[in-house]
């Protein structure tokens, strides 16, 4: 597969840059107050109503254990085929075409699929499937 043909949505979290394939994001919306889920782990912030569907808000910073989401951030609603989930992130930087410069070092965190160099920094690409799996495993307990 040609990595360079795909677009990335780049967002920030606690000063770090992260990326997701554009195809995996349904829409970016402003935060609204989620309804808390009783007994859920603290990285589940609650559920909101997005166009009549219930979407669970995942506080990505809490899941990655690097703080918590900024109240003024954004919700990245994921494609329903992946999960009924929206990621609460600090801000959305924009879209970049993923260039061929794939990071070769395998990231230490299994929730990061790979790292891509862009300009002066790196973008950490999330491993969405593993994130959803981990959340699911935690919820089952």
């Amino acid at each position: 597969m040609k990595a360079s043909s795909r677009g990335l949505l780049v967002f920030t979290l606690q000063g770090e840059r992260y990326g997701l394939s554009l195809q995996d994001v349904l829409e970016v919306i402003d935060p609204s107050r989620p309804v808390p889920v009783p007994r859920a782990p603290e990285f589940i912030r609650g559920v909101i109503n997005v166009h009549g569907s219930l979407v669970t808000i995942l506080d990505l910073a809490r899941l990655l254990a690097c703080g918590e989401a900024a109240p003024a951030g954004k919700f990245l609603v994921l494609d329903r085929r992946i999960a009924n989930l929206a990621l609460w992130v600090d801000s959305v930087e924009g879209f970049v075409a993923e260039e061929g410069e794939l990071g070769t070092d395998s990231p230490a965190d299994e929730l990061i699929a790979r790292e891509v160099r862009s300009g002066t920094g790196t973008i950490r690409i999330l491993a969405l499937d593993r994130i959803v799996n981990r959340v699911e495993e935690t919820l089952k307990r």
Partner: protein
Amino acid sequence: MDMSPYRDLFISESREHLRAVSELIVKVEQEAGSRKDMDALFRAAHSLKGMAASMGYGEIAELSHRIEDLMDRVRKEELVFDAGIADLLLEGADLLEVMITDVANEVQAVRDIGDLVQRLVAYRPATGTAGTADGGDVAGGAPSDRQSPADLLHGEPDRHGDASQTVRVRTEVLDHLINITGELITNKHRLMTVGKELASQPLDEATVELSRLLRDLHTEVLLVRLIPFSTIADRFPRVVRDLAKKVGKEVVFEVDGKGIELDRGILEGLSDPLTHILRNAVDHGLELPDERRACGKPLHGRIRLAARREKDQVVVVVEDDGRGMDPALLIASAIEKRLVSPEAGRLMSAREAFMLTCIPGFSTAREVTDVSGRGVGMDAVRSTIQTLGGNLTIESELGKGSRFILRLPLTIAIINVLLVRLARVALAIPITSVQRTVELRRDLIYSRGKQKVFDFDGEALPLLSLNRILGLPHSHAGELLPLFVSELKGRRVGLVVDEFIGQQEIFVKPLGRPLASMKGLGGGAVLGNGEVVFILDVANVL
């Protein structure tokens, strides 16, 4: 009437149909034929029958009729279109072609259709006995190599590789339709809320009218989704017969209420639980003939499966005239397995004791047999029924038999709930899980051991705080304690909440991945004011 003017047209049109039939059979067999193709096959045979009958060609009409019947069974998903059916149909089409050629040639030939008609009528799939012959294969579930109609309707992974594709689309359309209807109902509540604030007479009238129309629409949409109980019930005689034979029991099995219609989603969900209950009845409920003789009972055990409509519910009952259950034995067994404390056991009513069979880890089987000893137990049965928005009760009399009563909503998507508030969270409790709501005076609460209890219907029921169970702050400060009586692990309890908001119809929305994995949540809903509520799965909340 002189039919000769129509003869040529009969011949040409019949041949057209036959050509279409041959093409369709091959298409359906080879490349996962669609529902549309099945319908077309059925229609072609139907048309042929009508024309031949009009012309007075009795044998062509008869043979077409049998082909039409076979296709109808496929269409109704009593049969899966397999190679055997394809062969039979092609043979039929060939014979019809010969007979029509006879007509064209004005030959008075005698063609023997009897044998083929016989095979068309008696057709059974070749693999039909494989799953049921080996009882261990099917315990607690539908035979795995024969797809249930519901599976086909819902497009589960399909071993036969055909027949399901477009049928699934149809079901999705239906689901979509009911989703939209649900959205409309939610929006109507929203409009009514706004209307109240505006106090506008014309708006009120319009929303009242809208309510009426929506109710009609809802009814119509539900009607479309209804399919008769026979869709699954017709499989059970075979299940019961095969198992009875295997375990050496004699059973008379009756089914009533086959025509009762249920939402197809609910019917699909009922198949496994009912199979399990019926197998239990044969395997454990009924005695062996010798034992029955010794008790002075007829040698044939009797099992009855009956569906009936009660207002907006469908009640499905499975009853047997077997040995029944002994509450004391059940309780002793539960205590021995440390599923209940001896003290709780002592306080249990017979009704609660029967429900112990539905606790995970409990099995009434004295020894694990190869039919019922699999992982699927009564706990799964009960949980499935509750997921469908229904509930299960068990009645039994020692020596006389047992009765399993399933109460189900007519529709799965819109349910009646009791809305309650806990701390700042609104929760929806399905009405089927609420036996009674009570506002309890504090002085009626007393202690029994470590447990706070109150008297209800002559029984001391434990009081539990739903806030506490859900890890929410609990004050329960008022003069009267709002609580509802429900069943937890086979035991009736009073669940205390902070406030009753009221009763309402809500449209159930799935929580989806990953939140659906959380125990105790049965979905969510959006209220008229836009507020999101969770539906509590009471049975699994502990």
